[in-house]
């Protein structure tokens, strides 16, 4: 966009609306169109390890799917334009278009997989490809952009997210996508998948609970004894800097030695590899954000408020629980949010020392050059991280005192 355009935009705004009302949406549409034109939508391969032939969107779709996709694209184009719709109705149209768009993509892909595989060898595989991901991404971003512009409250946003999750869940649970290579990988690993999901959650919970039990008092200590703060923070900061795999690796030898020296520890399952070193490393990583945010939250309580509490005759314990903790809670929960997302990600790497979790699929897939197995580990991890982030974000905004949300 040249400078001349924006200037004329400004001039037009007083009299009539500009030609392009939403440049973000227009950019997204251009990206989507380019991906349809130049990138494959799916790949068809003779078996799970060989890379296959590219299938473009127009080759994969039935005519009605094509027409529907084009119609949804046209609707989005209209809502990107400044006329005839005003800004808010245009955003509502875009928001309502995004979900059918995502559904239609899933339907087209799943339908193509079933058709392509019906007259192919049993080993043949259909996988989603670059253009599918770009279109899915664009669909999600259209919704994000519309939600941002509409400035909806927490409840409608939550409702929209819920509808989107239900939609995708229905597509996954039904027979629709069962032809896809990644879903067949899932079907082969179904029991194992649940095990690894539980393992992953155990790793994350096993890291968060001890980190909270140790980190919250440490944060309070840092607030009460300012002299200890810089020393404590720099020690924790060093750990935060170390690459996770290095920490996992360095813990193996001491823990193995410990397990040899103290047999009852070994009986508890503590050893050089497996859950124990993974959880210890994750706890170490989780400490800094919790301690730092607890400290920052407590330090952010205004001195005047504390004085008022003392003036009312509250005891130090009462001040802590009834004044300081409630006021510091949003910052503390933001720390928990950082730590949860971080632990979900680091638990992936823990698979390298035999702790299991979704990382097991990723590294097994990388070893076998089986991309769909990699995705079977990577996608659920990302979804888990995004969901955890979303839930904790809501908790953070709920913990803010009423009127400041």
């Amino acid at each position: 966009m040249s400078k001349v355009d924006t200037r004329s935009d400004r001039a037009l705004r007083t009299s009539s609306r500009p030609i392009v009302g939403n440049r973000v949406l227009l950019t997204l549409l251009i990206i989507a169109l380019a991906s349809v034109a130049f990138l494959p939508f799916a790949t068809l391969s003779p078996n799970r390890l060989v890379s296959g032939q590219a299938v473009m969107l127009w080759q994969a779709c039935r005519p009605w799917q094509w027409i529907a996709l084009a119609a949804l694209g046209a609707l989005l184009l209209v809502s990107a334009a400044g006329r005839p719709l005003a800004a808010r109705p245009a955003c509502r149209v875009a928001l309502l278009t995004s979900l059918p768009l995502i559904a239609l993509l899933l339907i087209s892909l799943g339908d193509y997989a079933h058709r392509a595989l019906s007259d192919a060898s049993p080993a043949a595989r259909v996988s989603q490809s670059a253009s599918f991901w770009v279109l899915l991404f664009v669909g999600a971003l259209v919704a994000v952009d519309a939600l941002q512009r509409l400035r909806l409250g927490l409840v409608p946003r939550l409702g929209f997210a819920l509808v989107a999750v239900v939609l995708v869940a229905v597509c996954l649970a039904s027979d629709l996508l069962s032809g896809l290579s990644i879903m067949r990988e899932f079907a082969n690993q179904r029991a194992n998948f649940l095990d690894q999901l539980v393992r992953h959650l155990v790793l994350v919970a096993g890291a968060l609970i001890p980190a909270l039990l140790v980190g919250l008092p440490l944060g309070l200590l840092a607030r009460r004894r300012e002299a200890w703060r810089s020393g404590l923070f720099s020690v924790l900061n060093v750990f935060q800097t170390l690459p996770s795999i290095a920490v996992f690796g360095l813990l193996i030898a001491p823990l193995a030695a410990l397990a040899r020296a103290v047999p009852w520890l070994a009986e508890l399952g503590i050893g050089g590899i497996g859950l124990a070193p993974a959880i210890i490393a994750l706890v170490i990583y989780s400490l800094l954000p919790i301690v730092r945010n607890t400290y920052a939250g407590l330090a952010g309580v205004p001195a005047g408020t504390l004085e008022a509490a003392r003036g009312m005759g509250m005891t130090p314990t009462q001040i802590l629980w009834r004044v300081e903790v409630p006021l510091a809670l949003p910052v503390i929960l933001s720390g928990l949010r950082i730590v949860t997302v971080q632990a979900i990600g680091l638990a992936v790497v823990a698979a390298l020392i035999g702790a299991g979790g979704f990382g097991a699929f990723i590294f097994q897939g990388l070893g076998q050059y089986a991309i769909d197995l990699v995705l079977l580990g990577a996608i659920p991890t990302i979804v888990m991280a995004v969901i955890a982030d979303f839930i904790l974000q809501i908790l953070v905004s709920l913990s803010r005192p009423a009127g400041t949300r």
Partner: protein
Amino acid sequence: MNAPVASSHRASRLTQVRARASGNLVLGGLIIVLVALTLGMGALEPLFHALFPELRNPLYARDSFLNLMLAHIGLVLVSSLISVTIGIAAGLFVTRPVGREFEPMVSSLAAIGQTFPPAAVLAIAVPLAGFGFAPTIIALSLYGLLPVIQNTIAGLGTVPQTTLEAARGNGMSRTQILMRVELPLAMRVIIAGIRVSVIINIGTATIGSTVGAKSLGTPLIAGLVGNNLAYVIQGALLVGLLAIVTDLLFERLERRYSFGG
């Protein structure tokens, strides 16, 4: 930094200088250890023999540690240069009048993107670009982009409106304001973003060896797979030291850009 110091503050100033001197000593020592270990890990062979008597080859010898270190630094340097260039450019674009409309979208992309685990991003980059150096660079630069964008936007946002008005009142052009006022004032926050990005990349480059990119993770992963703890320790020590030294260097750089203490 150059702010006048009141005499009552001289004592705290002195402890600050003393802390900085001991900080320099620590940094210098760590750099010496890092270089010495990279070049002379072989000298520690008897130690590893003594620690792990059951291992026949307790010293990683498939590649020199210098090569691995340089490959690791190369991976991080190339990807960080890409992230910093694109990240600052994108941050500048969305804070100018031309691109302001894109700011909420870019900010939330940077925020959502950072919830993606780096290891998962690395694993997903593989089918896109094939195994080896290229997918690792793509994944590292993509991931490293996010903190740089976020901090560029945040840093430029901290520049007070009155300062900008004063600059305009002095008759400075838009480019002059950007180069002489906004960027210098935002530089500390931008560098903090680059620091986060580089430190994450040092860690993720270590895992890059699972997708075929040579790095200090190569002996580490080889040791984990082949049950050779000595390899694991050698790789982990070097990569850990590299991360700490880099972090301390960035801390120093950040301090240089903090104005008025």
